[in-house]
């Protein structure tokens, strides 16, 4: 039988990655309520699926991001399910959420115009600081595929953002 992570270890892995997970979610779901809801849903889903959480810290981190990504993609959030704990986080995120800088919005739009998986690959590498093989794990593609897609995405971005990148 495969080893199942204990509650203590599960909570430790979550705490180690909580900041990055929340940033990841908030960057994709700018609405603070959605980000907080999805963060809570991610922890709940991870807990339900914890028998699949890898024991290795690094692999557990990638697994948590995969859960977060899937929850974001498939989210059917309901306010009725928002616990008091998630509501408190929502309230705090509302205070901390700042305006989007206009000078970066064009780059963000260019990234968003890429094919969906390529855009996510770029965000994982450049926004979340992952290595390409780690981003590949989160998306569920081969590392070699990720490298070639990343190279192609960079080229497209260079071409579409010529004005910005020649300044």
């Amino acid at each position, binding site marked *: 039988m495969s080893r199942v992570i204990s509650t203590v270890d599960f909570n430790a892995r979550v705490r180690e990655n909580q900041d990055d997970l929340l*940033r990841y979610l908030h960057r994709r779901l700018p609405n603070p309520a959605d980000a907080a809801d999805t963060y809570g849903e991610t922890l709940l889903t991870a807990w339900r699926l914890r028998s699949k959480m890898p024991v290795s810290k690094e692999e557990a981190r990638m697994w948590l991001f995969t859960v977060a990504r899937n929850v974001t993609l498939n989210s059917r959030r309901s306010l009725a399910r928002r616990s008091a704990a998630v509501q408190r986080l929502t309230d705090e995120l509302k205070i901390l959420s700042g305006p989007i800088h206009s000078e970066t919005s064009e780059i963000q739009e260019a990234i968003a115009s890429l094919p969906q998986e390529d855009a996510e690959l770029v965000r994982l590498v450049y926004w979340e600081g992952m290595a390409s093989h780690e981003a590949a794990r989160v998306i569920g593609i081969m590392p070699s595929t990720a490298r070639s897609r990343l190279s192609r995405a960079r080229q497209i971005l260079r071409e579409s953002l010529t004005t910005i990148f020649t300044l």
Partner: protein
Amino acid sequence: MIQSDFDQRLRESAPEVEVPKDLSLHTASILADTQTRHRRRRFAWIGGALAVLLIGGGGTAATAATGIAPWAPDVQVQAPSAAHPQCNAGFEVSADNGTAPSAPVIRAARTILKSIDLKTLDTAPMQAYIVQQNATATNGTTGQSSPVHLDADDLKQQALEMTVNDIIQTRLSARGYDPTQVGLEATIAGCGK
């Protein structure tokens, strides 16, 4: 533009997101909500040295202190204290979320519960976890810091219950069952409460 500048511009395009300084408290609170959902407690255990002794398996019937209702948890342990030497505690699997009491997942949970050796169960990691959680507890209504202090006996007892629950939940998950269909109830008899 050289590649490093290009990469830097892409990195700087990340939306600025400030993480709350007390995110750990929020995370702990959300996890506690999630993980205690199936840890119902009908009664708090009585204090006292927890010289745990398995005294009965499933189907063993005992009578509660009141002498009124039959008491038949799936497993029983002695939890004697000076004031209540006959204190017994029991664990019982229950069906949650509309699950039939005779469902395979309930039978599997009961089998797992009965297989746990309560005499040798290591509850130290769970005790450490409870202490950490209690130290950073917040008021559920106000969100204000509200640390909880347990005496040593209560800590051991709570850790035992949570460890047993954890084992059941993780083993059910590993066997492909949905653990949210199962609850664990702790009951007491002869403990003066």
